[in-house]
């Protein structure tokens, strides 16, 4: 039977078992939307901006483990996708993004809403392709889903010109996959595993360093088992947080620029560093020459290009985290390292990350502690900046909780739309977004999406009136020159002002009123006593989103911190008092 490209597109989505799609229409995608009209199998979500659209698909994919699917029009639709594509790809999130395109006979003519989508996307995604012929459409879509979710997952962009959408062609959809240039590793080299286990077996001070790869592979239970069998303590990157439950006695904490003292010290002193699913990004290593200087490094990663890219590795194992961990478990034995474990435990106890014990100060730690207590089965998303760093420091995660955060690209505006995607993917979980007052405004229009989709998510805005993370750097390393970071600033402000004071103008917008104008519930919290009550009220509201604005002190910093260019050992533990 002959069907149009658009009809085949819908058929392909069903064959790929897509149940949800995030889509924004436009002139060059209108035929695809027409084919989606009034069908029941695919839930088409209309956000309010294409950047938020792709973050929502990203949140959906990270929280469910399925491939996130986006559909936008050509030109500005496609260019608005770019930030979200880079965000997802950087954190290895499987997405397939469809972009409409001007008809093939107009490509290159500078037609209305024409951009070279593939040219723009090429360097920020895993694979990008234009469908030039109707007969290629089915194969390309089938390959796109396979490429997105296999190997190191990532984003695939499929650009479909309008004439291909309209053209009639076969209704067949391929079953098999054969891509001659793409054969991801699906096994593990046992010789390398044996070598690694031999080294681990002799270690006196071993550490597991776990990155996002374990969460992406959904290998959390296997990882916990491996830690328990060997008794080796576990340090995570922020993307790896939750690889084993954070209240597990073998869990040490996050490492890196804002990592815990115990984690950074353990990494600096270990003799065997067994890392799984991390690329040794500069945020975790500090000064690279000094990183885990005395350790033999074992590195498991699904991406061969991640191995020995930033740090030279003694024993590489190229494999998916889950497959590798399962193989490693078979060879794992209990290690006799009680002394080392006790040493780490004492660091953990003596240098606990604490913000303030002063009951008069509303701290992010206190707010996040309440999230820990009140929400048991939840997805927590963060934005980027201090809100993200505090959340990753204080949030407790177990197998019933998941943390979604933009770790690689560090994209402000990620948190709210990601929470929307997560709630759509996990309707039975509580979904909480922790954002700052800066980042929330980068995609605040998505409150409309959350209201329209009747999503009872909880949006926590930690409002300190500043772009706080940059403000913190300016305070610590730029001589308190707060250049363009005050969000209360008005043109009429005193130009010498360098500090919040009683003359400061009121904050704009009023987040509570703004939430209410969208049809959401809005609350403002300024004291510790109000926190629990606010969360409980938010939890009761199961028809609309709830926005809780927490007014926090503008001078709170994320501590401890490794200053840029320093080694992990050189941490600043506490903020200097003025």
């Amino acid at each position, binding site marked *: 039977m002959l069907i149009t490209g658009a009809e085949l597109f819908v058929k392909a989505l069903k064959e790929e078992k897509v149940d949800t799609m995030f889509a924004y229409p436009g002139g060059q995608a209108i035929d695809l939307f027409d084919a989606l009209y009034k069908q029941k199998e695919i839930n088409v979500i209309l956000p309010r901006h294409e950047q938020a659209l792709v973050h929502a698909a990203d949140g959906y994919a990270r929280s469910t483990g399925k491939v996130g699917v986006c559909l936008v029009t050509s030109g500005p639709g496609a260019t608005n996708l770019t930030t979200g594509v880079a965000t997802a790809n950087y954190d290895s999130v499987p997405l397939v993004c469809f972009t409409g395109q001007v008809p093939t006979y107009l490509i290159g003519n500078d037609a209305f809403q024409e951009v070279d989508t*593939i*040219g723009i996307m*090429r*360097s920020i995604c*895993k*694979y990008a392709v*234009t469908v*030039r012929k109707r007969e290629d459409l089915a194969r390309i879509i089938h390959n796109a889903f396979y*490429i997105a979710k296999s*190997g*190191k997952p990532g984003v695939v962009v499929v650009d479909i010109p309008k004439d291909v959408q309209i053209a009639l062609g076969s209704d067949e959809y391929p079953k098999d996959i054969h*891509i*001659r*240039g*793409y054969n991801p590793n699906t096994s593990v080299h046992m010789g390398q595993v044996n070598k690694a286990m031999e080294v681990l077996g002799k270690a006196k001070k071993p550490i597991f360093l776990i990155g996002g790869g374990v969460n992406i592979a959904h290998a959390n239970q296997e990882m916990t088992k491996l830690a328990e069998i060997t008794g080796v303590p576990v340090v995570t990157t922020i993307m790896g947080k939750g690889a084993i439950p954070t209240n597990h006695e073998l869990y040490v904490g996050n490492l890196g620029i804002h990592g815990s003292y115990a984690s950074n010290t353990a990494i600096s002193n270990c003799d065997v560093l067994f890392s799984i699913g991390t690329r040794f990004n500069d945020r975790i290593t500090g000064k690279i020459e000094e990183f885990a200087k005395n350790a033999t490094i074992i590195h498991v990663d699904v*991406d*061969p*290009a991640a*191995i*020995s*890219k930033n740090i030279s590795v003694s024993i590489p194992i190229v494999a998916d985290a889950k497959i590798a961990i399962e193989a490693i478990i078979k060879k794992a034995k209990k290690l006799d390292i009680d002394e080392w474990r006790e040493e780490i435990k004492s660091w953990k106890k003596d240098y606990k990350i604490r913000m303030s014990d002063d009951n008069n100060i509303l701290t992010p730690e206190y707010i996040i502690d309440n999230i820990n207590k009140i929400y048991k089965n939840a997805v927590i998303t963060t934005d980027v900046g201090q809100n993200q760093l505090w959340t990753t420091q204080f949030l407790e995660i177990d197998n019933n909780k998941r943390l979604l955060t933009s770790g690689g690209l560090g994209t402000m505006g990620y948190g709210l739309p990601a929470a929307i995607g997560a709630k759509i993917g996990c309707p039975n979980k509580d979904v909480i977004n922790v954002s700052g007052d800066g980042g929330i405004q980068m995609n605040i229009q998505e409150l409309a999406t959350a209201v329209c989709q009747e999503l009872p998510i909880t949006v926590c805005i930690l409002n300190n009136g500043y772009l706080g993370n940059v403000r913190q750097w300016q305070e610590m390393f730029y001589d308190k020159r707060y250049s363009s970071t005050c969000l209360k600033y008005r043109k009429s402000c005193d130009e010498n002002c360098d500090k919040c004071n009683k003359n400061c103008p009121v904050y704009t917008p009023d987040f509570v009123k703004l939430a209410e104008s969208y049809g959401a519930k809005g609350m403002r919290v300024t004291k510790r006593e109000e926190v629990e009550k606010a969360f409980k009220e938010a939890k009761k509201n199961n028809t609309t989103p709830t926005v809780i604005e927490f007014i926090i002190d503008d001078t709170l910093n994320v501590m401890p911190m490794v200053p840029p260019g320093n080694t992990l050992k050189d941490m600043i533990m506490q903020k200097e008092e003025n």
Partner: protein
Amino acid sequence: MEKRWIGLFVENEIGVLARISGLFSSKSYNIETLTVGTTEDPTISRMTISIISDDKTFEQIKKQLNRSVEVIKVIDYTDIPIHKKELVYFKINSCNDKDKVEIFRLEEIYKYKVIDYSKNAIIIEWTETESKIDDLIKLFKTLFPNRVEIARGGSVAMEAISVANK
């Protein structure tokens, strides 16, 4: 840092050259030369690329290329016997009779081919190794300063037939 060569088999599709060159530029690797042409299978193109890099960067380049969906195969030419030649054209302008005699005398030594000729200009075609071409360019520049125009093609390479098969 040294010069290295790789052979690449890639999908013969629109945008693949941009993808490969983009990969080099996005990682700040500098391509020395790059040639591309189709193979016996019209859906596959073959590239010969040279890069000046250290060992670590070269390893990264190979891995990055290997993981590109469009790249079918990467061959590292560093330690294998290969045949590798480059095509070059020289145009020597404002030749007098003495110059012409010199050019024909050198033809016997260098075995290049004079393929075009006019009253005061000569075009030479030559297929040789990159380093021999470098030498001849130097010589011509000394003999005919500011009168030499050069078009180089970049090297193409193929693995040698292994001794066992000979």
